[in-house]
């Protein structure tokens, strides 16, 4: 690949501003890169015509001195969970294989209005259900990273696997993701990227295909903390069309990044939760976590041991709440109005045939779990109990954030694993989310920042979690951590 590989948003904005490159040139370079790297299977639908049109429009705006902001002219990948007007939106499912929305999701619309150039719709786990991007109807995504001296195909993590593959593979400058239980942070960790999940309600869910409504949150995936801040600011904001949207101004996260970028963590109180130490956790991960503590301490942060006692209940709670909501959210895919229809002799038969053929195994599994936990006789024992535990988990964080500004944890319990591993054991797969799910249940902003490489040369991420709506604190801490880690490795370096 040519030298344009691994542009950052900030660098692209700078080069565009200086006239060193046009948006059309940047876009064409990335289109070429996509074409050369189709082996990644990062995109379900390429939207090159739309991309060129938007790039030209961006260049025309710039020529008139009318620049929409730092995203203007920047080519990005759009997770195929965001409905995009006139561009097929599948949620990686057979059931929406041919669905072309007549509307644009709020978040993708904001990014469009910010001038960004959509290269295509990024692959993902079907309906965002998965942690390895192996459940997509359109095939699994290949992680651009390969282990040192081995030839294995690794998973990119999930569900935003196409998004991280596109960015870490250098075929898009940044990408949108959505995070329900870790779907931005875990794949970012698996690919050496920054992935940020905002406070629940920061980014509108309007027009995003729903998985679990009380957890789903869109966020940026990028090379740097600064890029994540730029993109987050473009994506976030109150939307009256989403009743759970936060009616608050979007914080100035780029300023927060600038504050931490020089390696300044003075006054920052960092909590280290003891419950995040797992039996059998790889030594490399424990080592990186300890390293993270040292880095922050050396930059002037105050380190505190904290306790989040209900952490161990987070995963089971999540795997009740999320499937429950999903089982109801996915009821609309019935073959009646849009999407796949498999005709049957009766209405019920049509439902059965359509949904049996239209949904993959993992989606069907979660629909069944969700239906079960909401059923008469089980509702109180499962769903109601899970909501109560969820409140306890949120309260754990609330009390910890009385004493600290951010919590530092590993992002995932492992580095990227080989395709085929954990595939026949859903529970092992679900364990990928063990560190990311608690912040999701509590609705808190959290970010994975690349920290280093493991013994196999694979990237590992560190997760920062802050209090509700404390994105500025989160970005400042992340920028400092990024500075200390000095992570510069890129996919393909080792091979």
């Amino acid at each position, binding site marked *: 690949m040519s030298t344009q590989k691994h542009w950052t948003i900030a660098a692209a904005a700078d080069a565009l501003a200086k006239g060193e490159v046009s948006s059309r040139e940047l876009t064409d370079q990335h289109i070429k890169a996509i074409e050369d790297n189709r082996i990644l299977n990062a995109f379900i639908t390429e939207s090159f015509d739309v991309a060129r049109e938007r790039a030209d429009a961006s260049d025309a705006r710039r020529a008139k001195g009318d620049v929409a902001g730092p995203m203007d002219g920047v080519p990005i990948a759009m997770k195929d969970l*965001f*409905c995009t007007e006139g561009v097929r*939106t599948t*949620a990686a499912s057979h059931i*929406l294989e041919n*669905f072309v*929305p*007549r*509307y644009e*999701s709020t978040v993708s619309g904001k990014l469009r209005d910010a001038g960004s150039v959509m290269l295509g719709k990024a692959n993902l786990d079907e309906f965002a259900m998965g942690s390895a991007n192996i459940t997509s109807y359109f095939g699994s995504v290949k992680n651009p990273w390969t282990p040192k001296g081995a030839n294995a195909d690794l998973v990119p993590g999930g569900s935003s696997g196409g998004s991280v593959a596109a960015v870490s593979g250098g075929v898009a400058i940044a990408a949108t993701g959505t995070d329900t239980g870790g779907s931005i942070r875990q794949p970012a960790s698996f690919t050496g990227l920054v992935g940020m999940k905002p406070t629940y309600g920061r980014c509108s*869910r*309007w*027009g*995003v*295909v*729903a998985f*679990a*409504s*009380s957890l789903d949150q869109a966020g940026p995936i990028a090379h740097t903390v600064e890029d994540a801040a730029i993109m987050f600011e473009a994506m976030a904001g109150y939307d*009256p*069309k*989403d*009743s*759970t949207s936060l009616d608050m101004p979007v914080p100035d996260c780029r300023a927060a990044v600038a504050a931490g970028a020089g390696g300044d963590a003075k006054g920052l109180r960092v909590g280290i939760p003891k419950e995040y130490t797992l039996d059998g956790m790889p030594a490399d991960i424990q080592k990186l976590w300890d390293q993270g503590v040292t880095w922050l301490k050396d930059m002037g942060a105050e380190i505190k041991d904290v306790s989040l006692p209900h952490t161990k209940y987070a995963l089971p709670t999540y795997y009740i709440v999320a499937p*429950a*909501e999903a*089982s*109801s959210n*996915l*009821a*609309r895919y*019935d073959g*009646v*109005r*849009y999407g796949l229809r498999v005709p049957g002799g009766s*209405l*019920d038969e049509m*439902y059965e045939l359509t949904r049996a053929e239209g949904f993959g195994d993992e989606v069907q599994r979660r629909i069944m779990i969700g*239906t079960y936990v*909401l*059923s*008469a006789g089980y*509702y109180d024992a499962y*769903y109601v109990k899970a909501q109560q535990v969820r409140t306890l988990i949120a309260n754990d964080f609330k009390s910890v954030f009385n004493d600290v500004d951010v919590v530092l944890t590993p992002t995932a319990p492992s580095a990227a694993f080989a395709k085929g591993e954990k595939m026949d054991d859903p529970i092992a797969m679900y364990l990928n989310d063990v560190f990311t799910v608690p912040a999701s249940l509590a609705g808190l902003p959290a970010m994975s920042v690349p920290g280093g490489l493991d013994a196999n040369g694979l990237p590992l991420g560190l997760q920062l979690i802050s209090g509700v709506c404390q994105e500025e604190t989160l970005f400042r801490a992340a920028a400092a951590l990024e500075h200390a880690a000095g992570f510069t490795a890129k996919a393909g370096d080792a091979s």
Partner: protein
Amino acid sequence: MSYLIEGRTGQWEVVVGLEVHAQVISNAKLFSGASTEFGKGPNENVSLVDAAMPGMLPVINEMAIEQAVRTGLGLRAVINRHSVFERKNYFYADLPQGYQISQFLHPIVGEGIVTLDLDGGESRDIGIERLHLEQDAGKSIHDRDPRRTMIDLNRSGVALMEIVSKPDIRTPEEAGAYLRKLRAIVRYLGTCDGNMEEGSMRADVNVSVRPLGETELRTRVEVKNVNSIRFVMQAIEIEAERQVEAWEDGEEIIQETRLFDPNRGETRPMRSKEFAHDYRYFPDPDLLPVRLEEDYIAAIKKTLPELPDDKKARLIKDLGLSPYDASVLVADRETAAYFETAAKGRDAKQVANWLTTNLFGALNKRGVGIDESPVTAEDLGALVGLIEDGTISSKIAKDVFEDMLETGKAPGAIVEEKGLKQITDSGAIEAIVDQVIADNPGQADEVRGGNEKAIGWFVGQVMKASQGKANPGQVNQLLKAKLLG
């Protein structure tokens, strides 16, 4: 009023509760901006939200909340400051989301009261259990195509208030009175047009029976979607009789949903048991709980119109109407308004009489409602005014009224044109009286001989001679003076 079914084993009491679905008057649907206009072409009032397109989210229409609170206040009910929309999950082709957004554990309105006006001016309170807001479903049309079912989503997402009564109703008549009263209340409030023909008010009827004297409730059966007051009353009678027969035959009544077939005069099971739904209710994560401030509720309360019960009490107390007349006059908003206009400055009792007897009779004959009355409220008032000030007699007034119905003219003009003004000039009346006495010496002697009743015959003769225009009181007085004085 008692309504008991005579069975072989003794007398049975009927226990009824009603669930009324009332369509909220609002330009937009409960969770989308789509229009609610009736009579549009198929699928013309459908937004992306109503069609449950991927990623679409509901947003509460505040007007629907306000209307539900208004209705709750009109039902003298508890307004719940905290209520929750939940999802009721089931698959059906005209239910695009695969769930109906409704309220389950935490409805917006709690317990209230509807006072029934029964025959003979009696009244009886029926308890309201709750009122909650929910989405209507679309419509499945099975008769357009031999093989396929067509779906019209115009109604999909329209706001409904489900108003649930307590099982306080004991007779078909009470059920009818309850529905009429509920309809009057929502119409007064302007929260539902109460139009059962267009389906903007529909009732599900819960019926059970028990031997007279038993205090426990027996298994109830739900008779669904009965679309007129008459059918509700019939359905109760028929279903109650079926149940009595079943119990007496040693059968068990099962809790089920039945359909009323007015043509065949029967109810029959609607869904078989194997399709019994588990609705898997849970709070809709797309919507926040509804929280209402006291100030908000108080502000709505201030805008409530005078409701039927208050108006009735006022008509009895201030205007001296009988409870019966008062309840007839307040039964609907238009009649009440008509009456109050007509009665302004007149003898209210007389106006009430004219309205309930003469005008209602005439309107019934013409098959029109009071809003289409050929006689305006002002003119009816004026007619009573002419009687009150002695310009015409009640008898002449009836003729004038007939004329008003025909021509729509004002009563004063008719009296003027036809020279119907009552003769009150005592000289003129005296001349007629003298003439009649002179013409009938035999009858005059009879009266003088002590048969005072015969004086009535003389009154009739004098009225006839005056073409009804002589003031009857004056005639009476003069005759007595001349024959008995």
